[in-house]
């Protein structure tokens, strides 16, 4: 009998084990829901699967009576738009400021402490300021995401840029590169996959800030909808929305990982050799 740490599940076993917790949760939910519904068939806390189906049918495949829109898709579109705008803007800021900070000591000296200070401000605490300054429109919500994750991304990119071996920067200079060329040919391409990795890590925070902003001031969006129907205790809508958001977050993460693997194979091969 091998030691426990040396026993590795096979492919099928791994798959089954991976699905198991999900199935367990479902079964538990079904049991609890059935028990509650048997006691009181109007119970709203743990709706049955048929009421989920009804809610999904209503939200996704029937036009809204008032606006004529398909609400789920409309909410999804506006949330994803805000999210990608916030993420994209943050990534761009991180790329520019982070690389400049990492490459040029005279940029780093004034900016690095400042950005560290900014990153320590709790973004939710200045949400009211954002609404006052940027109004209740799209901009405030996007800005909340940016203020929430950009400082983290900038600091991370700066750190990664500083971690690139000095030998490479020296080598580039002996090959005739000036500062700008070192940035575009040595630092930028090596930072990109690392930036993608930290964007993936910040996805959770980005969703958090998005939903918080939507909950407070919006007229559509996944977060807005959840907080709206909460008033009617509509668990049959809230739970499918939560599952949908989770699925979207997972897909986004997956796509970013695929892009990184496709565009920067040398980076992932390097990591693998380092791990072995």
């Amino acid at each position, binding site marked *: 009998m091998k030691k426990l740490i040396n026993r590795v599940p096979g492919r099928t076993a791994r798959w089954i084990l991976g699905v198991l917790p999900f199935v367990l949760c479902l079964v538990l939910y079904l049991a609890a829901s059935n028990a509650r519904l048997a006691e009181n068939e109007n119970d709203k806390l743990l709706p049955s699967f048929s009421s989920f189906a009804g809610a999904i049918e209503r939200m996704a495949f029937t036009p809204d009576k008032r606006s004529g829109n398909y609400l789920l898709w409309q909410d999804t579109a506006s949330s994803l738009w805000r999210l990608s705008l916030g993420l994209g803007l943050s990534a761009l800021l991180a790329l520019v400021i982070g690389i400049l900070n990492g490459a040029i000591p005279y940029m780093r000296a004034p900016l690095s402490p400042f950005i560290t200070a900014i990153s320590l401000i709790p973004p939710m605490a200045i949400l009211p300021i954002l609404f006052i300054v940027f109004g209740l429109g799209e901009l405030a919500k996007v800005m909340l995401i940016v203020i929430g994750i950009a400082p983290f991304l900038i600091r991370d990119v700066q750190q990664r840029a500083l971690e690139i071996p000095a030998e490479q920067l*020296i*080598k580039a200079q*002996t090959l005739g590169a000036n500062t700008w060329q070192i940035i*575009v*040919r040595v630092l930028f391409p090596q930072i990109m996959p690392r930036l993608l990795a930290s964007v993936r890590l910040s996805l959770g925070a980005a969703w958090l800030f998005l939903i918080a902003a939507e909950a407070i001031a919006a007229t559509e969006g996944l977060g807005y909808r959840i907080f709206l129907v909460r008033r009617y205790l509509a668990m049959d809508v809230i739970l499918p929305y939560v599952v949908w958001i989770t699925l979207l977050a997972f897909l986004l993460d997956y796509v970013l990982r695929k892009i990184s693997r496709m565009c920067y194979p*040398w980076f992932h*091969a390097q990591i693998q050799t380092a791990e072995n």
Partner: protein
Amino acid sequence: MALIEIRNLWKEYGQQVVLEQLNKTVGEGEFITIVGASGCGKTTFLKMLLGTESVSRGQLLLDGKPLPGEPGPERGIVFQRYSVFPHLSVLGNVMLSLELEKSPLLGRLFGGARKTAEKLAKEMIDAVGLGQAMHKYPHELSGGMQQRLALAQSLIKRPRILLLDEPFGALDPGIRADMHQLVLSLWQEHKLTVFMITHDIKEGFYLGTRLWVFDKCRFDPQAPNAYGAQITYDLPVGQTDGHLLKKSPPRAAEKVPPPLPDKYRRNLWNQVFTNIPCPARVIGLCVCGVGFV
């Protein structure tokens, strides 16, 4: 005129004197191999030539003018590792300096200009025997292939001076012999001046036209940092492989003593082993060098 002049050069880190009173002149086309105990300041010396370490006292002159205080294209370098760019293929790595030269803004070439650069780079890659690996990335290359790539990458820029810091330390003896041939032929072809640090004293004898031994001559047990290393030996050495020299003599052939006959060379070995002020240390060094082989 001398290419590099070292005038009463000192290097100190705080209280610690690393190098003291270096006085040497190096002509164009010389191949200088540097040996010395670990931690005696060989890399520090190379870094001063490279321009990444400052000179504490004295002067380091290139063509009679103080050496630029930052790395530049006239001085190529191959480090022990991290010398090639992991995000570029073999071709990309070698082409990089051509692209940087011709395209100041993007650092990239397109179309016809790219074709020309590719052709030049491919010749260089073939010269170091990496033709089969043209489109591979560094992580797909062995250690020896990476060092050959680093050499090709530096040499395509046609530096006047090539600095090598234990470039073959991590390679096995067979590959090392190949690399020796490669370095010698590139040295002659490109009329380089080479400074090469090695822990392998045999390699030092074999490759160099001059062998420098760095060692501390003064030592105070009460203050081990008070004195630095000097160049205690500056030996004219010839190449074991005389035919290489005969084929195409280096430009500085007049200044370089002709290849020494075998008997004499053995005498030089004895010299290093016996006739020195602090023999124990140097013997230790030689043993360490031989151990490396």
